[in-house]
């Protein structure tokens, strides 16, 4: 139970961190390049803590879980593995995820499991920055030019079908608070709330989109080709 939760949270952070690292050197400006890389590194830190916890009972470290599992053994939500698309879609993904993650981690900071609680309490501060950074950009793009508004709306539409999965199981209670935050930000941005769509789920039980395989191919290539290589 605890290992499963640690694995889900760790995989979310690992995969989204990897996605954000893909922007490195490609972002619209130096400031945004560093901002996205910073968020990615924050997530990588969370992944390390959670995957260490998840692997401990089997004597596997975080690297073993990150680099030596196949895609059906990953249980990240589908939202985080979605391709970056343009900057607006990346921001949409980040905002929807970070707004959820902030609520989830604030709740887990009071968890009965002391280690889960400690990791969550440490991470919730940085997540709060991620959510506000992404939220600000949702507003800027939504309330910007005709083109930025259109791209922001398209980015949110793309991501929307993957949000149901965030509220599976005992995270269901977080939905009203999440919806209120998202709707408030979208209203400020002058963006419509995306229409309800049939949610796509399956990531938590290892049924992933084709995108995850490509991520892992890139992420795992080096450790698989050169096992136990060190710097």
């Amino acid at each position: 139970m605890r290992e499963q939760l640690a694995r889900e949270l760790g995989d979310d952070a690992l995969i989204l961190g990897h996605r954000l690292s893909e922007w490195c050197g490609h972002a619209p400006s130096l400031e945004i390049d560093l901002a996205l890389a910073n968020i990615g590194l924050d997530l990588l830190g969370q992944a390390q803590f959670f995957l260490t916890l998840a692997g401990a009972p089997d004597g596997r470290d975080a690297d073993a879980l990150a680099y030596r599992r196949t895609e059906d053994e990953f249980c990240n939500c589908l939202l985080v593995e979605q391709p970056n698309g343009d900057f607006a879609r990346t921001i949409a993904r980040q905002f929807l995820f970070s707004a959820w993650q902030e609520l989830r981690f604030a709740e887990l900071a009071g968890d009965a499991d002391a280690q889960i609680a400690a990791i969550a309490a440490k991470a919730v501060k940085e997540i709060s920055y991620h959510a506000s950074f992404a939220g600000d950009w949702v507003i800027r793009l939504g309330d910007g030019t005709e083109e930025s508004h259109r791209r922001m709306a398209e980015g949110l539409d793309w991501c929307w079908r993957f949000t149901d999965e965030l509220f599976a199981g005992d995270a269901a209670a977080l939905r009203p608070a999440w919806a209120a935050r998202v709707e408030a930000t979208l209203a400020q941005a002058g963006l419509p709330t995306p229409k309800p769509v049939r949610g796509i789920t399956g990531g938590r039980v290892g049924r992933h989109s084709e995108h995850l395989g490509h991520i892992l191919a890139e992420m795992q290539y080096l450790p698989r080709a050169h096992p136990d290589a060190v710097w």
Partner: protein
Amino acid sequence: MTAILPLWEVFVRAKNGLSHRHVGSVHAADARMAIQAARDVYTRRMEGVSLWVLPSAAITASDPGEADALFAPAADKVYRHPTFYVVPDNVKHI
């Protein structure tokens, strides 16, 4: 993108009790975005506990052409330095 965004000068206070020091600049649309950019660019390795940003356009700089008139006369005024006193050993932090 940076071409259309104004420049902001960034000042970081390394720790409480020290003054803010100029560290560089960022491009941003407004003050809030400038603070975020400054945080990401200049404080990600624990360089500071407080940030200031101000529009670069708000700075008035001295004219390099007037450097001689402004600064050269100070060169031979050693008596303006408080170095002609003996500081007692017990007086610290001077």
